[in-house]
């Protein structure tokens, strides 16, 4: 089959590799019909997440058709399914508490030591996202082996086309959980850093949850326009003092909740961020946390900090004092996707959530390497790339 494989920093290629096969009883093989490039794939592309190996198949946002099932799978051949990026067994201590992204049993035993050393506990497994999270082959491929197929994949009705449901795999529930972790109350003013796909879905979710005002922060005009189209007020951080603006726009109180949908590769030219960029470049591995630092200073005392943005390591000059002295609540985490898929599918079906507005490009799988390059270098116009195995080269819709 064809699959997008990682070969090094800024070097991904579509290679021909072996088709996957059923190994464990609960497995299923999915024939991919749509798969997206995620902002967090760019962290792999930029080489800032460790333990990615040449030949690894990337991709964790995908959906398709069930081709084959193991004897304990509950799926049947021919069903259309969206697959959560988190691999979860459904039966361990964490899964039973619906903390699916903390599953004990999905990351192979021999792969758990790396993340256990880094984080104190091993991470659970994710598709196509480095050997820290299991080294599972990802979804930017024609076929994928999906473990625990009785727990993760959600069967979608035929009248909802791929573009409307694909993002149930990651960015929609990630934006939703980002808003939920901000514990939004009806009169709240909420600020969201980053108008990439997760930020945009967090904005939409915060408004559905009843926030009275959402303020979006970015520097790409097209992304800010998408945020405004959803109903957010916007701040361009290149020309505006963000903290000053947020104080004024929240009546001098400060915003009630902040959502960092940027993560470890924050832009911006604050001195500490420039130092973090330099450290990342020379392999000292500091996360660039400029957005999060600014968010912690901007949130009102007693407010909430939600971190859906991806961080992988350590960061320097963290405003720990502000966190304690202002009595902040902080929540983060990889998304417990399986907790949200059913409810969010209903919200897509009844029109509460629009999931197609952010797709800027549709490419054949063979063109995936160009998709990565442009998604990284032309962030203003390439807001979301969907890859379609089987689509004709040269076709763009």
């Amino acid at each position, binding site marked *: 089959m064809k699959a997008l494989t990682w070969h090094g920093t800024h070097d991904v290629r579509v290679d021909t590799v*072996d088709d*996957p*096969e059923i*190994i*464990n*009883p*609960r497995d299923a093989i999915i024939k991919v019909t749509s798969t997206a490039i995620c902002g967090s794939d760019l962290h792999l592309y930029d080489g800032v997440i460790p333990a990615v190996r040449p030949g690894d198949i990337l991709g964790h946002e995908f959906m398709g058709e069930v081709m084959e099932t193991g004897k*304990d799978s509950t799926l049947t051949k021919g069903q259309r399914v969206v697959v959560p990026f988190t691999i979860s*067994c459904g*039966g*361990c*201590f964490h899964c*039973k508490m619906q903390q699916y992204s903390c599953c*004990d*049993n*999905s*990351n*192979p*035993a*021999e*792969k*758990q*030591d*790396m993340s256990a050393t880094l984080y104190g506990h091993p991470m659970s*497994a994710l598709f196509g996202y480095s050997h820290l999270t*299991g*080294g*599972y*082959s990802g979804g930017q491929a024609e076929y994928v*082996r999906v*473990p*625990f197929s009785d727990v993760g994949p959600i069967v979608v009705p035929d009248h909802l086309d791929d573009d409307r449901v694909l993002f149930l795999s990651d960015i929609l529930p990630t934006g939703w959980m980002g808003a939920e972790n901000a514990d939004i109350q009806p009169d709240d003013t909420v600020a969201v850093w980053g108008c990439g796909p997760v930020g945009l879905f967090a904005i939409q979710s915060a408004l559905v949850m009843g926030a009275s005002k959402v303020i979006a922060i970015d520097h790409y005009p097209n992304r800010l326009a998408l945020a405004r189209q959803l109903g957010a007020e916007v701040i361009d951080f290149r020309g505006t003092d963000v903290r000053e603006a947020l104080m004024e726009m929240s009546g001098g109180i400060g915003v009630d909740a902040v959502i960092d949908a940027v993560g470890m590769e924050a832009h911006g030219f604050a001195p500490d961020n420039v130092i973090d960029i330099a450290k990342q470049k020379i392999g000292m591995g500091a996360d660039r946390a400029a957005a999060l630092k600014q968010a912690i200073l901007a949130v009102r005392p007693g407010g909430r900090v939600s971190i859906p943005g991806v961080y992988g390591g350590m960061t320097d000059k963290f405003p720990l004092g502000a966190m304690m002295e202002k009595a902040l609540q902080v929540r983060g985490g990889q998304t417990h996707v399986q907790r949200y898929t059913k409810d969010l599918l209903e919200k897509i079906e009844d029109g509460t959530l629009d999931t197609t507005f952010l797709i800027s490009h549709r490419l054949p799988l063979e063109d995936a390497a160009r998709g990565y390059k442009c998604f990284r270098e032309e962030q203003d116009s390439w807001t979301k790339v969907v890859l379609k195995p089987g689509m004709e080269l040269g076709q763009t819709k």
Partner: protein
Amino acid sequence: MTINTQSSDRKSGRTGATAAIASAALAVGGIAIGAAIARRRAASTDDAPERSRKNLPGGNALVGRTVTIGRSREKLHGFWEKIENLPEVMENVERIERNAETDIWHIRAPGGTTVQVETRITENVPGERIAWESVEGSSIDTRGEVTFRDAPGDRGTRVTLVMSYDPPAGALGRTVAKLFRREPEVQARHDLKRFKMLMETGEIATSAHRRDRTRAAQQETE
């Protein structure tokens, strides 16, 4: 019985800390679990298990690990009691041969060879505990026990595996020493995780995407 011959960490080249622990263990050797625990308890002022002490007096011949598994004590004991089941979760154990009085463990060793260890069950309390020790003349002097205790509420069972070991002198001893250098503690941890996976999910997680590339399949062909 978690003598590792197929180190999971060979590729990443991590051998340092636990190798040192294993070496220290070899230097001391011959410590029965009970004696070791008793001696250390005397020097301890807190409630942590002896195996988590820093700077253990006399080195560390003890390997121990606890996992919580969401299944009943009886079910878990039942799996372990059938000792021939264990190679399914202990990837360096090729097979276990059951005889009337003893069990012979065929353990994979470097260079495609195997080391055999003969043990006998010294205690078997259903739902609670299984203990074993090597018989006289076995190539490795070892003792071990696995205990099953109720976890709080409906969390299942706390399973603790504790082992001590003492390889012999001479050429065989050097081979065995090589085995032990491959991070027995890491191996114990991995084996218990695989046991937990099998009990809780009915399968052992693998990220291979072809059957011939799972670790189990690759060990068969090595």
